[in-house]
Structure formats: C-alpha cells, structure tokens
C-alpha cells in the first residue's frame, strides 16, 4: 500500500512539470500583448511599454520566463500579480473559499442524491421513482447560469432568505445558496447513477444469498446493496469535487464569490501569466491528490480490490 502511494506521488512530478509547461506556453502564446491592454484605448509611448514589460519580465524569451517562474516555485515564490500582491497570498485567500463552497455543494448533492437514488432504485417503477426521473431530467438540461440567476432572484431578491451575493469575508451561510445551485445539476446525475447501480446490485447473487440466509432488509440494503453500489457514485463525486475545486467560474461570478474561479477568470482576461500558471499548478496538484484518494477509497468500499505491490 505504502509503495503504491509512493509510486503514485512520484508519477505526479512529471505530470506537474508537463502541465505547468503547457499552460505557461499557452498563456505566452495567447495573442496580444497584455501590457498594451493595460492602457485601455489609449496608446502609450513605446518607451513606456518597454519599461513596463521589463518590470514584469515580459521582455524575456519564453523559455527564460518559464525557468524564472519554475525556479521561483521551488523556492515557494509564485510570482507577483499586476496589482503587486504575491500570487501565493492570492492562493491562500481564494482556495479556502472555494474549498468551503465545494465541500458544501458535494455534501448537499451526496446526501440528497444518494438517498433519493437509493429509494428510487429500491422502488423501481413506482411513482417516487418516476417523478424523480422527470425532475432529474429537467435539472440536467438546465444550464447552471439559469439556475443561478433564478435562485438569486427568487431567494435573494424576492424572498430575501439569502444574501444576494456573498458578503464580506465570505461567511459560510452566504455560500449556501451558491452551493445549492452548484449541487442541483450533479444532484440529478447522482440520483440516476445511484438508482442504476442499486438496481444492478440488487439483482446480484450475493444479495439473493444474503436474503435467503434470512438477513433482515435493514441489514441487506445498507451493507450489501448500497455499499457495493457506491463505486461509480464515489468516482463521480470525486471528479465533481475536483471540478468544483478548480472553480465554478460562472456561479462564482454571479454570486460574487471571491474564490478561485472568479480570480482565475480575471487573471486570464488581464493576461497575468504567473497568476494563471500558479493557480493551475495548484489545481493539478489537487486533482492528483483527489484521484489518489478515490483509488484508495475503492478498496475500502469493495474488499475484492487490491493494489499491486
């Protein structure tokens, strides 16, 4: 097990190097000069442009810029944004907010999705099952910004149950509404996944064996059916969590959440290479760790799964 983890972590190094290089290259290759754009519709004298470029190392060739950046990262220095703030500080402020939002959303979709999916699966074809199939179909086909705007208008402005956008310091109660919005779409997917998986597992030999052994339904459902149905659901949840951690740009924008997605979007628009690459580096790391955790979790859920030495 330890060997497996170590090997996975070692594999992460080339992945990280490769992604940062690619991202850096892509940001660099983005057409247009971010320094020119800093001046809006006005054209500054070329000497001023040159001086500003020099200040941000933007006058150096691509590979030199990349190596300077990489060297910085190994010393824990992620560079400085145009507004003079160390990127590591921006990371430290925005990631916790997005983490809270992601955890909330995943919790909501997990609790409701798995419960409803389980009930639907056990009562296949019933009225409960049928109505949630329709509901989930509707939710899946709705774009997230529609859900977000409607939720903001109804619950924030009309009813006043929630703050319309996230207030100072991004307190957790303000994150509930955006989290619900983020959860709705994945919730529908999880209902369907759980339902299908529960139906599939319910027909397996070991479930019939357990039933014929005389085990109670209360024991069969959670231990034999649910646990064995969760592998695809957990995989989906993990991927979803990863996606949410990388920042829900649209939802964060609508609710003005000072998180990763909004900040990254702004950095891309302003062409701030170091900020973009540092964010993406951390995101890749998070993705790798989450994937590793999920792989380890499989063994817990299904003891038949073993890891090669």
């Amino acid at each position, binding site marked *: 097990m330890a060997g497996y983890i170590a090997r996975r972590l070692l594999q992460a190094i080339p992945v990280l190097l490769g992604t940062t290089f690619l991202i850096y290259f892509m940001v660099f290759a*983005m*057409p*247009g*000069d*971010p320094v*020119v*754009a*800093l*001046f*809006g*519709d*006005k*054209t*500054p*004298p070329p*000497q*001023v*442009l040159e*001086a*500003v470029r*020099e*200040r941000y190392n933007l006058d150096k060739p691509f590979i030199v810029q990349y190596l300077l950046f990489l060297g910085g990262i190994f010393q824990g220095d992620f560079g400085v944004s*145009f*507004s*003079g*703030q160390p990127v590591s*500080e*921006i990371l430290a*402020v*925005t990631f916790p907010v997005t983490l809270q939002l992601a955890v909330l959303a995943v919790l909501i979709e997990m609790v409701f999705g798995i419960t409803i999916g389980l009930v639907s699966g056990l009562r296949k074809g019933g009225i409960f099952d049928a109505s949630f199939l329709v509901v989930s179909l509707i939710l899946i086909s709705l774009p997230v910004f529609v859900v977000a*705007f409607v939720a*903001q*208008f109804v619950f*924030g*402005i009309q009813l*006043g*149950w*929630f*703050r*319309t*956008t996230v*207030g*100072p*310091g*991004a307190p957790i*109660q*303000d994150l509930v509404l955006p989290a619900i919005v983020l959860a709705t779409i994945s919730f529908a997917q999880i209902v369907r996944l759980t339902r299908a998986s529960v139906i599939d597992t319910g027909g397996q030999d070991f479930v019939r064996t357990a039933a014929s052994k005389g085990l109670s339904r209360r024991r069969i459902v959670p231990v034999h059916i649910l646990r064995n149905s969760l592998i695809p659901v957990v995989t989906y949840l993990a991927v979803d969590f990863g996606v949410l951690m990388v920042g829900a740009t649209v939802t*964060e*924008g*609508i*609710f*003005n959440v*000072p998180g990763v997605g*909004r*900040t990254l*979007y*702004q950095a891309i*628009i*302003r*062409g701030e290479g170091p900020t973009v690459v540092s964010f993406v580096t951390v995101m890749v790391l998070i993705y790798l760790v989450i994937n590793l955790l999920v792989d380890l979790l499989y063994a817990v859920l299904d003891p038949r799964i073993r890891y090669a030495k």
Partner: protein
Amino acid sequence: MKIKRIGVAAIALAAAGALTLAGCSSSSEPEAPAGDSTAIITTNGSEPQNPLIPTNTNETGGGKILDSIFAGLVYYDGEGAPHNDMAESIETDDAQTYTITIKDGQTFTNGEDVTAESFVKAWNYGAALDNAQLSSYFFDSIEGFSYDENVDELSGLEVVDDSTFTVTLKQPESDFPLRLGYSAFFPLPEAAWEDLDAFGENPIGNGPYMLDGEGAWKHNERIDLVVNEDYQGDRQAANGGLSIIFYATQDAAYADLQGGNLDVLDAIPDSALSTFQDEFGDRSVTQGAAIFQSFVVPDRLAHFGGEEGKLRRAAISHAINREEVTDVIFSGTRTPAHDFTSPVIDGYSEDIPGSDVLEYDPELAKELWAEADAISPWEGSFQIGYNADGGHQGWVDAVTNQIKNELGIDASGAPYPTFAEFRTAITDRTIETGFRTGWQADYPSLSNFLGPIYVTGAGSNDGDYSNPEFDALINEGLSETEVEAGIEKFQQAQEILFEDLPAIPLWYSTVNGAWGEQVENVQFGWNSVPLYYEVTKSE
C-alpha cells in the same frame, strides 16, 4: 434571513474622529448633516489592476479609490469645473510657467505636512522612465521630460519654499491647471519612499477618506475607507465611510442593489438597461459621460489616402444612421455624436461648421462615393476591426450593414478575440482594416479629446493623422491664457477634423446609475464616478 453587516470598528473609529474634530470648538455642537454621519456607504468597484500608487494607476478600479483617499492641487465638481483643493493659488502670466502655492496646515493621515516637496518628488518619480509608471506620459509637457533616457529630476520643477513650487512647461499649455485634479498629479508623503511596494498596498493619503487601517484592501473582495477627519478641503464627507465592493460582473452588483446590500451603483448591466429606470425611478440617473466613440480608417489603407480617402470617409460617415443605432442597439444609452469631444466638457458645441458630415444622408453618401470612384475605382471589402470581448459586435454589424446597404459595397466587422490582441494589432500598425476607437477624458478639457489623438506623432494617434494646420491651431489654443479664446481655437481645429475625418465620430456614452432607498444626495461627476463624499445615508 437578510443579514446586515456594518463595520463596527469603522464606525467606532469615525465616531472617535468626530469627537476630536468637535474638540476644536468644544462650546458648539458639531453640525449634523442630513442623514447619519457615521453611516458607511457601500458601492461597486473592481479590483485595482495595479498597486495603489497615483502615477501607476490608469483604470477606474484603482482611480475611484485614489480619488477618495488623495487630494490633488485641484478637484473637479459635478460639472467638471476645477476648484482649489490643496492649492492656495495657481498663477501664470504666459501659460508656460506656473507658480503653485499650497494651503497651510494640510497634512497626510500619518501627520506629515503636505508640502511643495510632496508634489515635486511624486511627479519626478512618476515621470522617470526607469520607474515604468503607467501614467508617466502625463508629465511629458514638463520641461526636462524625456522618453529616451531616464531623468530623475525634471528641470521644469523647482521647489521655492515649503509651500511653493514652480512648474515650467516645454511650451505654453493653458489647460495645465485643469489637469492637476487627475490622479497622476497627486502628492505622496515621505513615508512612501521607504518602501513604495508596501505603500501601494496600504497607501497614506490626504483626501476626504483614508484606509480603514492596515489591510483594509482585501484583494479581490473589497476595500474599506473611513473619513479622514484631518482633511480640510471642500470635499468634506457627509457620511462615515465608503466600502467599495469588487464585483466580477455588473449583474452581481445590480442584484445586490436590488437585494438591499449595495447603496450606490455606477454601472447598470446590459440585461437591466431597459428596466432600471422603471424599477428605481428618481433613484436612478442617466447622464452624459466624457467618453467619445469613433472608428478610424487610416490613410495608409488602399483607397483611403489623399483626396480619394477624404471623399470615401465623408461618404461612409453620411451612410451611417447614428440615431437608429443608438436607439435600437443601445436603447438610448448612447447619444449620437456632433463633434470630436463630449457634451459634458466646457466649450462643447453642436454647431461647429462642417459637423453636418455626421448627418445621415444616403443620397450624398452615394454621390461622394461615386466621386471617389472616379479617382480610382473601389475594390475589395470595407471592414471595421473590434475586440469581441467588449460587447461591440452589435453596433459594428449594424454600422457595417448600413454602409453596405447605402453604398452598395461589401462591408463587415473584423473581430479580434481579445482586447489585448486588438490593441496590439493597432499599436504595431499591423491592422489592415478600419478599427473602432474610444477616448475617455482624463481631465475635463476640450484639448484632452484632441491633442493626444490627432496631433502629429501624438501617443494615441493610432491612425497616424497629420495636418500642420490642425497642429498649429491646437498649439495656439493651448497658449491662450483666456479660456474662451482657447476654446475658440479648439473649435476651429475641429473644423479641420470634420474635413479630414481622421476618426469618424459615432456617439458619446452615457453613465447609468441607481441607488438604494436609504441614500440621498447622489450626484455623478463629470467623469461618471459618483461624488461619494456628498452621499448621505439614513438607517
């Protein structure tokens, strides 16, 4: 479950400050302005692109904050007229050498006096090429300024004594005092020079507001300002402070205004443009802005040089129905242009001779186009370049369609994916089509709309326009010491522009804003930013 959150510390601080002020004349109660003088006004903003250093800030996100926490030699009132702020007097005989006296007893919030040195050092820093300040070109008319080598001290700036300094310009420029309210000309305290990077994070100013302690700038989230009780100028705050919340989208800000979490909003999102007036009624405003929009068809393009180019530009201008586009595409939030400046600027006129070239006249357009064809027959396609990330497609398509229909030629928009790419193509002159341009005035003066854009070799002369007659008139206008005489010259200069059309004027922007039920006295300044210090709020 609406949660109200007021900076308690901010109120305590402001209240303590109010006590000190009252202490000066302990016998009389301080006069309470209408509304609650401790209430914090919340408003929308955006994360400053640069550290909060006056000479390195050239966008509205940072500008709005700097204008509140700093005071320059002059400030602009709602109409854009300059009034002395830190300056006691600004005197000149020849519009070239200015003697500036600073009011006694003005201080920065760290207790330092505002002296002649505070201005001169800040300007020298801003002007020096090595410091790569974004607003360095604002100093280029001061004697000694150079783009080719680093100059640490401008020879045109001379400190006479603690409260007096002189400015010598390279040539007479009568509107120089008008510029002094722009943020690039703000003073800096000695404390700034110890560590300018740290200063940019926690700036110390001399304006009506100051930062609410260290770290009041919460990046990507908000900045909290409280009243600076030591400020003695005219811009006395009628409220207890200002919280500028950074929004990524205007829609989010508008939702907050509707939800009662925001007091003053100075930009209405496109989605609400047609409804906000009904919703907010007399708590909303639509007024002219100092923003001029146009497109440039450079001389260097085939068929647009010399006499042929003049005819073709005039034909294109006559082919555009500006009224229709501003009504249909912009639902009245733009007003058709009648000149090259803006209606909010002193001296603006709708009746400059030659301005009829902006009138929609398809017959004349066809005639002029045919005349140009007689010189050299037209071929190819006419295009207007624009950045696709700025909401320009609608009007570009409308305008090029009008040109296509009226002139019977092939015309279309030429989108660039990003603003950076678009501006880069314009700056290195690789763009081979017409292109959209815009100008937002930095200071309320006609010459600011003309000099930097159309004078030969000027910084923002993206079309490389050159006309010695025009250059001469601008120079003459700048050397007039009487404002009226200057305006006359600038209007004559515009007559030349109407003949040559170095840019084809389209329309002026308007600013749209709205505010909540609790606030009053909201007035928008000439630069479309609300005069926050006047706003009052009742609980």
